């Protein structure tokens, strides 16, 4: 079982390893980290909430992943069903719903409401579709597991509106430091992030430990890797 996280922060939470941020040629990265087409992949990370019923830390198990102008990607049935059962068994708060991938962060409440009314996706992220598409192309089974950070009712601090996953986290810290007016927003976000990463770790752990039910992969083969 392979666990992919788009950013270093997420990878640290899931396994405690220090890794670099995502970016570059995803297909090539997939070829390096998931060479075996038979081994299922969990695409794990955090997301923004569009479904207004989701609190920070609620898990979204993607029933489909889509982005504007491209066809929907449907996760492989066996790992998806196994993941659902594992989450239910552990009593983890989750929904199985559509996940939207955008190229820029969705900053405000109004924009989230519009996306919710238009697409009905439970969550929004910036990476799942590209990773899932690359896996799909190689015939590798996958599921997407995301944990909500900023809920549908929350707006992101302005300095995050143009943030992209490829950016250095230190650049983000510098941006935050230079904008005291946004500190309250960041504090809220940080609390949510803490909760979100905690449930993400629990969810991924539950799903990974149920992996033998997916394809009889021995537990010792469960590894965490990050796209670089």
């Amino acid at each position, binding site marked *: 079982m392979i666990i992919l996280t788009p950013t270093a922060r997420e990878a640290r939470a899931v396994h405690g390893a220090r890794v670099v941020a995502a970016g570059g040629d995803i297909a090539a990265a997939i070829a390096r980290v998931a060479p075996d087409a038979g081994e299922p992949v969990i695409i794990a990370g955090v997301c923004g909430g569009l479904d207004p019923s989701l609190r920070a830390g609620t898990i979204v198990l993607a029933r489909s992943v889509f982005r504007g102008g491209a066809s929907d990607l449907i996760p492989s049935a066996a790992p998806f069903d196994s993941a*659902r059962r594992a989450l239910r068994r552990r009593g983890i708060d989750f929904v199985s719903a559509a996940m939207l991938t955008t190229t820029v962060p969705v900053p405000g409440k109004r924009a989230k409401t519009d996306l919710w009314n238009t697409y009905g996706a*439970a969550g929004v992220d910036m990476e799942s579709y590209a990773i899932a598409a690359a896996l799909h192309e190689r015939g590798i089974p996958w599921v997407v597991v995301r944990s909500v950070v900023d809920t549908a009712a929350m707006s992101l601090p302005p300095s995050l509106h143009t943030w992209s996953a490829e950016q250095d986290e230190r650049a983000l810290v510098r941006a935050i430091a230079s904008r005291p007016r946004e500190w309250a927003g960041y504090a809220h976000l940080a609390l949510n992030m803490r909760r979100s990463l905690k449930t993400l770790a629990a969810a991924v752990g539950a799903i990974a430990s149920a992996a033998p039910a997916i394809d009889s992969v021995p537990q010792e083969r469960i590894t965490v890797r990050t796209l670089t």
Partner: protein
Amino acid sequence: MGVPLRQAVSVSAYLMKQKLKGRKRYPLVLMLEPLYRCNLACAGCGKIQHPEPILNTYLTPEQCWSAAEECGAPVVSIAGGEPLVHPQIDEIVAGLVRRKKFVYLCTNAILLERWLPKLTPSPYLTISVHMDGLRELHDAMVDREGTFDKAVAGMREAKRRGFRLSTNTTVFADSSPEQIRDLFNFLTDDLKVDGMMVSPGYDYPKAPNQSVFLKRPQMIETFRRILSFGDRSRWRFFHTPLFLDFLQGKYAMQCTAWGNPTRNVLGWQKPCYLMNEGTVTTFRELIEETEWDRYGYGRDARCTNCMAHCGYEATAVKATMASPLEGVRAALGTLAGKGSA
């Protein structure tokens, strides 16, 4: 919110009690279907397409009361089928009122005048009449001429006898905002109903006419137009302001399917009032064994075009309770006897 003060206070107290008990899922309105048999075959109804043996099955009054007690919801909406076809509907209603349940007796009102002498007016009883338009539109939607006049006569008689009267309007693709405005003006000014409920039609796969259903973006546009008419300030809705905002796309909500559990002649229906994935024998099984994570807008394709009050009003009520500002807004609406602006 437009609902009577007594009901608003009682429901608020119930919700606070559930919160104090730390309950995650609890019912707000029991959707009680004591029979599937109906005396109409409406274009947009997918409830009554059952084999004869099921259509001939009726819940007994004891089964209805037991369901209300088992579920514990403060409000009971008696639907169906047509409840007034049930030979013991007066007993069922009286028993529920005795248990201090706020009963909404939903009917097409064809048989209403016949039943009124056997029913007793009560602050706990509201007669809720299905009314989809003025004469021409309503009769077309229920596929029978004369139904509108019959229903109006029954409603006038109900008001004369002192019953609390509300209406339930389903908005379909065939109904223009202007037609709905004219209906609401008639119900408000002429019939002087105590309140109105409104909801977009749910696209039942079994409904006889599939062309009558609106898609979600059309629903939002239609409700924006309906609720932007100047006449709006006079209309009294039995809805929370948030639900009306939701219908206009101004407020995002997810469905609370377990807020309106359904008990019908076959048992407790999974997962909600509109979708039927079989039944279980107890309310507890329904709440604990249904995989709720699978249902709702964005989670199940069948929920894509659903904005019905039986799924979303419970969400709106909970959100109203959670927000002091919305609480004040709803309270003002209740005291003024109106819905949101």
